[in-house]
């Protein structure tokens, strides 16, 4: 049973976003990590990189699959989670907490995010629970 914290926003590509003032913390959802299986490598973006919504932000690799993580917002990467580089399993163990991936300082408010109810419906449509 996947969780969908109510204080987060989501993308249809299974990223989550937590807004804190002008910044957005980004990670992948519990459903995403469970679909990927054991995560063994994460390629983080460089701090200072400008990203636009929908652009590749990071790469998450499980034993079998390579998956792109897309930026849910427009902005500049201001912080990355070095801990997941050394211990990628943190994303499996705590997708919404210690498994966060990057913090983006937003340059615009534009986004196409889903709230937790809409995201839960999307997961259900994709065969998750």
């Amino acid at each position: 049973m996947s969780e969908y914290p109510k204080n987060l926003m989501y993308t249809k590509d299974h990223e989550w976003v937590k807004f804190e003032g002008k910044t957005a913390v980004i990670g992948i959802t519990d459903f995403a990590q469970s679909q990927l299986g054991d995560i063994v490598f994460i390629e983080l973006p460089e701090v200072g990189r400008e990203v636009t919504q929908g652009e590749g932000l990071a790469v998450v690799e499980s034993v079998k699959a390579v998956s792109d993580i897309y930026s849910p917002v427009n902005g500049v990467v201001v912080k990355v989670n070095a801990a997941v580089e050394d211990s990628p399993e943190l994303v499996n163990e705590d997708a919404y907490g210690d498994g966060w991936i990057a913090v983006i300082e937003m340059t615009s408010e534009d986004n196409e995010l889903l709230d937790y109810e809409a995201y839960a419906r999307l997961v259900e449509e994709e065969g998750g629970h």
Partner: protein
Amino acid sequence: MKGDELLSTAKKTPLYTKHVEHGGKIVEFGGWLLPVQYAGILEEHHIVREKVGLFDVSHMGEVMVTGPDALAFLQKLLTNDVSKTVAGQIQYSPMCYPDGGVVDDLLTYCHAPDKYLLVINAANIDKDWAWMVENSKGYKVELSNISDSTAEVALQGPMAEKTLQKLTSFKLSDIGYYRFQDNIEVAGKKTLVSRTGYTGEDGFEIYCAAEDAEEIWDALMEAGKEFGIQPAGLGCRDTLRFEACMPLYGHELSAQITPLEAGLGKFVALTKADFNGKAALTEQKEQGLARKLVGFAVTGKGIARSEYPVLSDGRRIGTVTTGSFAPTIGKNLGLALIEASYAVIGQSLDIEIRNKPVAAEVIKRPFYSRKEK
């Protein structure tokens, strides 16, 4: 996030409902619906290395070859010297095209000089069957594709013998490596048991009638409980064989890769009488190999994957055939087919990962070998 595989018209093995019962995540592989994992690839990988895991390998194909010319036919068909096998012995061999490219790699089970069982890769069954039938012209042999009526499970890991011994009166320690015993009762069912596998661990492969597969599966899961048995999926089957550097058709071997290039020269008996590929392989050996298979460790950051380019000073010198995180070793390793002059232990290479060169170094194969008792 993308990459979910679509389920199509693929076939179900006789153990399909067991996989669903055990929570297996089902994917399509070689035309079959099989579990890529149950508890998780890493956990299952370690269970097989340390305890015992049970795999459904019913997707593998089986072809019986019988008749007075069975041996002569196989000597023509296969690169290895089948005449060296005795009853109860198993031999690995590539099966080549005349140009030295590989049709498939397979196991030959010698029942008698006029009766052999060939075990072939699932994805190649139709192609292999056509090739075998075509090549059997002029030989007094009968070929019979028994793939659909035969189920196969692989019990792998250091506790495999103790697990299986609980279900049979046959003394399993009498079955040596790459040997088999036919007509053994396992859990009251008639089976063929061989000491073989695709994991680098000790273990057995058990062939049975499709209708007996579920009972044998359940009996093995129950017998192995005290040893920590778990069902194991295709995901760890691949990481286990990769660490042991066993080739996988479509990766280390293909119609475009010869067994010599893949480092399988010891399974090519160039001294025996004519066989498919003999002239081409003899010439390749005499002229020297232009490319060779190597093992490498990624020393920079990243995981090499199949098909990634291998570079040296920015110039492409080859291609990754398999790359993965190696769970037992704890490093990102790979196999690659590269220009022969670079195939030297300690050679620095770059693997092109997402358009960036990442440092790697040629290392010794296999990456993992189990300690003999």
